[in-house]
């Protein structure tokens, strides 16, 4: 299972980025292999529709869970269309957020 996490930095001790669509980095954690990748969000500075496209990115990565601070209504519509579990209000570091997640 893959978990997408919005992050403000490049490692697991980086703080969760509270924004979804315009987050700085997207961490993708694979619970099967216990490995992760970090990608600079290509839509951070989109003129409009950052949320829909960041959500599209999460879909394309085949993630099934998203951990973030707040996800806007258009991004949520994209994620809900594919039944991605969206966990909002997450704070602290990426590592702490993953530790709290029961799966």
């Amino acid at each position, binding site marked *: 299972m893959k978990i997408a996490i919005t992050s403000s930095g490049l490692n697991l001790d980086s703080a969760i980025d509270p924004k979804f669509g315009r987050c700085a980095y997207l961490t993708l954690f694979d619970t099967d292999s216990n490995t992760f990748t970090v990608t600079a969000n290509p839509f951070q500075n989109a003129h*409009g529709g950052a949320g829909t496209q960041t959500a599209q990115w999460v*879909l394309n990565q085949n993630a099934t869970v998203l951990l973030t601070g707040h996800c806007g209504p258009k991004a949520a*519509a994209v994620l809900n*269309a594919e039944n991605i579990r969206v966990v909002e209000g997450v704070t602290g570091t990426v590592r702490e957020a993953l530790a709290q997640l029961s799966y």
Partner: protein
Amino acid sequence: MKPLTIAIASGKGGTGKTTIAINLALVVPNAQYLDCDVEAPNGHLFLHSKKLTTTTVRTPLPQIDNSLCTRCGECADACKFNALAVTKQQVLVFADLCHSCGACRYVCPIDGAITEIERDIGTVINGVAEKIPTVQGLLNIGESSAVPVIKAVHEQALAAQHRILDAPPGTACAMVETVRGADYCVLVTEPTPFGLNDLALAVGVTRALGVPCGLVLNRCDVGDQTVLDYCHEQNIPVLLSIPFERSLAEAYSCGVPWVTAQPAWREQFQALWQAIERKVITA
């Protein structure tokens, strides 16, 4: 001389665009007033125009036939406004991000998978105030793009009359759409740091559009000298200066145009019009 299109813009909001536009429209012989500030049109409060016709403005929106769509994603890739998202089951369309460019329909490899429906986004009201034909655009509440409504207002421009365009504040798409193609742009500002900052941005837009511009300085006796210094440096003519005066504010607050309230201001605005005409000829 052929009829002119004059845009009244500002950068900063609340500097007096509508005041200048309506007073100018009232003194220019054979003028038409077009309110392009479609998010908050207010020229009618001073012109008291009589409504003649109301037309709905519609804009195309893609509609996806999910039974034909293969979810190939070409449409979402082509969309520069991020208005489409592709899931395994369907393509989602976000109307408030769509700019109606038609690119999705153009690139779609499946015949009939993307069609377009028309969506109401605002209205254009044609009216008349005394002898002045007026046009007012009104964007529906909640809509994000004013541009299609401003285009619809432009379509009502009368070829045989001088067109006075009341532009929206700012320097974004709506202002650009209003000023683009005008013969001259009157920038209204006040002599404050905020006024200067936004004036410089607006001047940048008019120069990029190739529209010559001049300045009306409102509340000219407050603030500082920096706006005048800037105009001098940038070779921008100051066409009219308006003092911060109680009688003008009172007339405004009662919805009475200055040229109606005070004959002296009729002459000032006639002089402004002559100055604009001269600038257009020499530009």
